[in-house]
């Protein structure tokens, strides 16, 4: 049997708190050297957002409602993107992360095609920044070149840094200390990140909430991202899986 790793990283997204403000989207792009999404890139439908906020409409004026849904890589236990990669560029690590190895990727885009959540992005061109803006790039994160797939890593560079620092200083990794850029920014605390192996962690506690569900659950991908249903006492109808 495979040895269980110490950590299993996961996230809970409380839809009752998400206001759609996009703070997570830009925080992620700043942390992870995501290429600038220019107008042309948007028009080509090639914008890269490792985390995005989808908006769904319900009803018509004046009884209209907007529902927000942040979507990032679900870090599935049974990830459909993994078995289709011919070069093992995407694989599952011991801590529940779906990892992309950039220097293995040959850009077949099979993984993108197979991901039901549309959270994998392809670099059609070498990303360009004006020289001065390159000063901002995060040295902990590779800049992906042309022909490479990229996606949310749960800010693996932060996971490594924080766990190593804790190990070096001989202390236990404190719950809440480690946060990916999106969860750190989120003003309403919609996103909670943590160790699902730790039964006392905030993320484990929240995951047990009776409002929990997983995105496109019936596909059997078994995501490590758990959503909590939006509460709407006056909803026209309840929507459940």
């Amino acid at each position, binding site marked *: 049997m*495979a*040895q269980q790793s110490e950590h299993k990283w996961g996230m809970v997204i*409380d839809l009752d*708190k998400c*206001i*759609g*403000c*996009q703070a997570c*989207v*830009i925080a992620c792009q*700043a942390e992870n050297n995501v290429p*600038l*999404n*220019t*107008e042309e890139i*948007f028009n080509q*439908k090639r*914008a890269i957002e490792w985390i*995005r*906020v*989808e*908006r769904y409409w319900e009803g018509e*004026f*004046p009884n209209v*409602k*907007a529902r*927000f849904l942040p*979507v990032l890589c679900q870090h599935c236990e049974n990830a459909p993107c993994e078995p289709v990669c011919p070069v093992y560029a995407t*694989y599952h*690590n011991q801590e529940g992360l779906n*990892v992309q*190895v950039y*220097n293995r990727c040959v850009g077949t885009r099979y993984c993108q095609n197979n991901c039901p*959540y*549309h*959270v994998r*992005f392809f670099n059609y061109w070498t990303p360009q920044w004006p020289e*001065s803006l*390159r*000063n*901002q790039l*995060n040295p*902990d*994160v590779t800049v992906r070149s042309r022909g490479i797939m990229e996606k949310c890593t749960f800010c*693996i560079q932060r996971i*490594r840094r924080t766990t190593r620092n804790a190990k070096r200083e001989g202390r236990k990794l404190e719950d809440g200390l480690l946060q990916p*850029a999106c969860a750190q*920014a989120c*003003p*309403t*605390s919609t996103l909670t990140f943590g160790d699902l192996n730790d039964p006392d962690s905030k993320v484990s506690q929240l995951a047990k*909430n009776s*409002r929990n569900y997983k995105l*496109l659950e019936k596909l059997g991908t078994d995501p490590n991202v758990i959503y909590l249903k*939006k*509460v*709407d*006492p006056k909803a026209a109808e309840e*929507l*459940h899986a």
Partner: protein
Amino acid sequence: MALSRRKFLVLAGGSALGAVIFEACGVPSRELLVESPIEMPEDAVTGLDNWYATLCRQCSTSEGVIVRVIEGRAKKVEGNPDYPINLGKHSACCEAGLQALYHPDRLRGPMRRVGERGSGEFQEISWEEALDELVAELKKYRGSDADTVVLATDPLRGHLGMVAKRFADAYGARAMALEPVEQSVLRGAVKVVYGQEQLPDFDIENANHILSFGADFLSTWLSPVRFAVKYGQFRGKRPRGTFVQIESRFSATAANADEWVFIKPGYEGILALSIAQVIISERLWDAKAPPAMTGGAWAQSVQSYSPENVAKDVGIAPERIRELAREFARRKPSLALGGDLPAAHTNGSSNLSAIYALNYLVGSVGNKGGIIFNPEPPLPELPIGGGETYKQWHDMADRLRSGRPKPVNLLLVRGINPVHSLANLDFKDALNQVGKVVSFSSFMDDTTAMADLVLPEHVYLEDWGDDLPNPGPGYRLVGIQQPIVRPLYNTRSFGDILLTLAQELGMERQLPWGSFKEVLEDGAEKLFDMGKGSVKAPGFKAFWSGVLQRGGWWDVEAKSTAVAPVSPQLPEKVEKPSFAGSDGEYPFHLLPFQHPTLTDGRGAHLPWLQATPDPLTSTVWHTWIEINTVKAEEMGIKEGDVIAVESPHGTIEALAYPSRAVSPEVVCIPIGQGHTYFGRYAERRGSNVFAILAPEKNDKETGALAWAATKVRLTKTGRWARLSKFEGEGSPGIQTEERDVVQITRTES
């Protein structure tokens, strides 16, 4: 051994036989993982970093931020977990401060105009030359012509505000502050209704029911990060609170309310009085409500605002108004707040006064879950912001143009872009009549392009500063801004420039400091002498380091002692709004709104902010016009059609975005784009909606621009352009017919 898919991959990648044997022997499978000898992403080596606390100055509220610095370069902005305003959280705007710092089109040193005014042709000069020229100008008008010099800035708070005021006073110059989307109506209402000079804090997290009139507080209104943090706590609470948004536009805040109620533009105050009428006539008021409100002349005067009397005007059924009133009165603690659209009408002040008066009836003034007053600032001389009203700027534009009563010989512009913000006064044309225009902007914006002399200041991540947020957090707070990187270019601190000028002009008595940092240290010493607050230290030096490390000083004990007036001044009636443009000729109400990330236009030069999808339309990089889907179909308008939007004051173009969330009576256009100059990411992009707002429509009490009081008509130009947006066919997004992607429950848990 069951051969799972994952194990199969392991086997396929390594030596199959070896793997089976190892597996059988119980060797941890970790050793068998298919790993290349080169570095895996999870082995990424991290560099050594330092984090410095400072303030974000991207919008008019300053959030406390910490900035990650590696080898002298700023890498990442995050919320300062200690800072009372934002408690470790931040917005996309805060994040984009790095792009302001490293913007490729930043001005790199002082410049003198060489081409025609407005041509954008400049020649680089030295600071000595630039300052000599400015000092010579200032000396020329010193004395009887000092009032022909105007210092126009953003609403400066804290020590920079004090220095600027002292400078203007000592010289005799006219100081003016410009808020592109002004809050003078709100400040006026708070003063009238609560007797407060400062804006109060809103105890959203402890409220059980929120009734918001138009305030887009989760997106752009006053202090959105702070309000969003509070909203998160409000939503996490059990029993779960309720939130109703009454607004003529379906804003990002309305989208998050439990219920959005459409109201006819400008009738918010009349609805508020009707809600008061129901509470009074059904005796639903709280025991803490002032008797003057529940039984006196005021109670009599609102009797004419019964739901039946107002229903037709406000566009809400009488029974629904009663329900709104009963919910508000019964689900205590309840909180009424108002801003943005209700303030932007000719009756703006009375709208807001009527709205804020509701808090008295439910006992929410000065109480938990309601309006919390802010204390006086800890250091008395420090201004807390506020700007000249639109009316005053209108007069100034007239003065610039006519030279009467006195011409303006020298205009100093800092932190504002009036050519864009006051486009409906044709401020650009007015600037042509000014003797000399000096800009301190770090960017070649629309106003700086009209300047004769440019003395670019540092961007805030290179500069010293402080702030007294207004609204504050309910207790005393001074946020400190420190440079987190060395200045990249040949720029200077605006505070330092003023102090240098003061020395040259012999005004050391009023401004005795050698540098702006000394001004801040002086102020901090006064805080230290108080011996209170968040930083305790044996000596001043340690105190100063502590303040810099924590990003400021605050005293949670120092709360307001002010008591709400026993007989508050309340509006006995609210007049109906009036509009520029007749219903027949101009059938649509134009409701402009601050763009979620570009806000009033000051963020338009930053590519991250241009590329942040609008939460509701997912539009990027454009000016769009939201129009009701059914109406659009009637008019034959499709998404991307270039629409000419014509008001009695002018015409702009915008791309159509048919939306089911828009009333057929209104159209909505974001503020923020339409810059001729502002760097490569903003220039010649979209339209400036300020340009078509009727300048004569002002709030009656304050003279603020009634920016929602203009009516428009739409014409198809016959042209079409792709509306850049994130959603739609071919975009990433869960494209499924299944309806269970966003799951909803009626019961809280």
